[in-house]
């Protein structure tokens, strides 16, 4: 009897569990859909929060993407646009003749997620707060706004921003999420009191929340696991296409691939491997969305030390690199060969100069010519010490390094020793100038050509080649101040030509953007701002 009783109970429990699983299958549809309720999508990514969702601090793509969908800036980039358009501003600003005062009229009737009104006081609060963070802690994104000298609020719907000097990139900077307008009420305790200074400010004010005016509200964040966004019911603009968005965070692209393959996520973005993209292109039930990316990859010389303080040796390497081999063999079409540090995304990109100097493809005759000019005897091979970091730029990095090294050796004039070191140590070695030739990558902070010139010419900004050339810096500063677009384009092209002549860097490829989705998902826009607009995505 006793045995039967237990057996019976066990049977009942098993039947109950099976029923529950079956019930769950109907709801979650592991095999046939994401299982989300109507009006929801699931986005999978291998990105993760690096620091904080606070726009004043957020300086990574993931946090910026969340900010972009939950908070808004005065101006923004419409999909695939290259110039900013108004968002919380009612129109583009009027700019004073000397280029230092920007006057904005604000869109009326906009409210923050906490119900408080968005007005000129909120704009002043948000921009000054971000600037102050940038002034106090170099790691905070607010450093992009440190040119703001003062902000006046003549009326609740009018704002006057005065810069310390003219800077034509200011509107582009205002379109970056660092300039998001946030609720002064929600952030009143998250303001620098004036006594804090230096490093540590960022950590002290770190937040996992964002209270803006955007189409979505951030309703939950589970560290390294997931985020949930819900449509803002009081949004002033067009309602988002989907009511709920779950963003699942994965550690490995292989796990992300499996989840998409099993349709547990609707969109996989940043970052599937090139092989995975090729796989989903051929699978029914999936599609791959492509877009131009603003990220670039390049070779860097340490120009301060032998052997690459020798200009002609740098030029010989520049003439030997086979970009096409990298993009076809390694990237399988997920990158485009690049011949200027300013990518063709921008109208003022100037690639012809590079081809003219070094050839569009590896040119052995030019290599020989530059090596002779560098003082290398004919037929002698030059040993090169070449470095890369194996994981920071993704799983393909070792293959990129090998193909670059092979193309150099294929000229018959170089022997290449490849070394690698993890990213933390890579940074130390770079700063210490211990790597003569190494691979690097760049993603712009704001969408302007200036962000591809100044960081590579001014060691106080970035400049991994340690290249300090007054002539180049003059060109950089001149284009920053030039208000006339045509005249500025001329200067920008001159700067690119000069950089190509001096070859402190060798551009290799422009990184394309890819997302893979299940069939029926639309509205995935991948454009140079690099931030996925969740509010445009919907699933039929």
């Amino acid at each position: 009897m006793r045995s039967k009783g237990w057996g019976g109970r066990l049977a009942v429990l098993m039947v109950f569990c099976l029923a529950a699983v079956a019930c769950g299958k109907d709801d979650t549809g592991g095999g046939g859909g994401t299982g989300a309720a109507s009006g929801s999508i699931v986005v999978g990514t291998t990105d993760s929060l690096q620091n904080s969702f606070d726009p004043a601090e957020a300086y990574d793509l993931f946090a910026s993407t969340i900010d972009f969908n939950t908070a808004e800036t005065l101006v923004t980039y419409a999909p695939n646009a290259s110039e900013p358009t108004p968002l919380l501003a009612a129109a583009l600003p009027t700019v004073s003749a000397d280029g230092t005062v920007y006057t904005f009229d604000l869109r009326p009737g906009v409210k923050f997620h906490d119900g408080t009104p968005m007005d000129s006081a909120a704009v002043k609060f948000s921009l000054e707060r971000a600037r102050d963070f940038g002034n106090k802690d170099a790691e905070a994104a607010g450093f992009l706004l440190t040119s703001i000298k003062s902000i006046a609020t003549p009326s609740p719907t009018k704002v006057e921003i005065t810069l310390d000097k003219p800077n034509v990139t200011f509107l582009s900077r205002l379109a970056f999420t660092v300039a998001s307008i946030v609720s002064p009420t929600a952030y009143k305790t998250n303001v620098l009191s004036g006594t804090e200074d230096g490093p540590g400010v960022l950590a002290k004010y770190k937040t996992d929340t964002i209270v803006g005016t955007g189409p979505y509200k951030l309703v939950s964040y589970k560290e390294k696991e997931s985020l949930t966004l819900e449509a803002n019911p009081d949004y002033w603009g067009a309602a988002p296409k989907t009511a709920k968005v779950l963003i699942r965070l994965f550690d490995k692209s292989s796990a992300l691939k499996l989840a998409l393959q099993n349709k547990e996520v609707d969109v996989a973005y940043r970052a599937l491997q090139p092989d995975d993209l090729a796989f989903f292109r051929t699978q029914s039930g999936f599609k791959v969305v492509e877009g131009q990316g603003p990220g670039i990859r390049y070779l860097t010389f340490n120009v301060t030390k032998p052997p690459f303080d020798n200009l002609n040796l740098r030029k010989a390497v520049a003439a030997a690199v086979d970009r096409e081999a990298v993009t076809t063999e390694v990237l399988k079409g997920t990158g485009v060969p690049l011949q200027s540090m300013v990518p063709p995304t921008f109208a003022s990109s100037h690639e012809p100069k590079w081809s003219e100097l070094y050839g569009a493809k590896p040119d052995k005759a030019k290599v020989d010519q530059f090596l002779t000019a560098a003082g290398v005897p004919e037929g002698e091979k030059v040993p090169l010490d070449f470095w890369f970091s194996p994981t920071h730029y993704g799983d393909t990095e070792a293959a990129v390094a090998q193909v670059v090294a092979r193309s150099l050796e294929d000229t018959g004039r170089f022997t290449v020793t490849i070394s690698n070191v993890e990213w933390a140590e890579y940074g130390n070695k770079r700063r210490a100038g211990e790597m003569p030739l190494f691979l690097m990558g760049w993603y712009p902070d704001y969408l302007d050509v200036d962000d591809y010139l100044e960081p590579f010419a001014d060691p106080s900004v970035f400049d991994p080649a340690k290249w300090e050339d007054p002539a180049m810096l003059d060109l950089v500063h001149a284009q920053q101040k030039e208000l006339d677009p045509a005249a500025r384009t001329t200067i920008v092209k001159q700067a690119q030509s000069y950089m190509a002549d001096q070859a402190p860097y060798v551009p290799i490829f422009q990184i394309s953007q890819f997302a893979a989705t299940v069939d029926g998902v639309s509205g995935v826009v991948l454009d140079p701002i690099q931030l996925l607009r969740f509010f445009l995505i919907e699933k039929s």
Partner: protein
Amino acid sequence: MSSSGGGSLRAYVLARLLLAVPMLFILLTVTFVLLRVAPGDPVTATLGGRVSEQRADQIRHDLGLDRPLWRQYTSYLADVGRGDFGRAITTNRPLRTTIADRFPATLELTLAAMVVAIGVGVLVGALAARFRDTFLDVGGRLLGIVLYAAPIFWLGIMLQLLFSIQLHWLPTGGRIAPFHEPRSITHLYLVDAVLTGDWAALGSALRYLTLPAVTLGMVIGGIFIRLVRVNMLQTLKSDYVEAARARGIGERRVLFNHAFRNALVPVVTIVGLQFALLLSGAVLTEATFTWPGIGLSLYQFLQNRDYTAVQGLVTFYALFVVGVSLVIDVVSAWVDPRIRFQ
């Protein structure tokens, strides 16, 4: 008798508690030392290249890593005593929060895996013993060895490929379907779903739990298969089983009412011992199935070289295993008085 027995149990518990103190001390010291002997300092390893040297110094100061080693050690012991496991460099969050958020998921997975392990072990082990030297026995023994030897991540990936990618029966990873979380009471989704009557959440949680629990449980189950088989064989040869058979009791009744129960006694003890193995296996299982438990956190912190976070989580793991071992020892002594007299 009862007074004497109770007294010896108290003495046994007291002795176990006293023994736990040096054990804890050694564990904490080893954990502390391991972090310090790792090459480079934790801040450079974690954030090097991404923050300025000034900022790195500030973080070192905030974490107390610029203090003399003995002071770091005493602070560490004092913090652990207060239940403070430190703060992760990469997330700048107290690890106590991470543990509170993620430990329920690990506990749920571990307990489910234990159920799978016992189920597989007892069933296959008993069958192998009952049908000794038959195809079933050979198959069962082979299965036990293969399961025990199989790397968890390999087994997990194979199950994912079969049940998720090929058959589309179960999800590849995660803990519950999007937007299906039950109202949180215990943070154990199965329990919360039952308590709140959320059957959709229960079904979803079971579906997501199945593959990780089976993967982890199978590996431990391999040990149980062999253990149950051997115990069962010994029991089947014992005098009282022979006597039962001689009295004409049916073979099924002999097996289940006489042999089986006695054969399970050592298994109960082993279950406790395997708990630590389950927790360590959970790290790999959680990483394979993106199961958001404390093992996945440990894996993520290791990936990011956040050694202070690793130290905190390993400390927690160590304390938990010591605590569980202690409880199991006491329960075993309470159930089986012979243990306390050994």
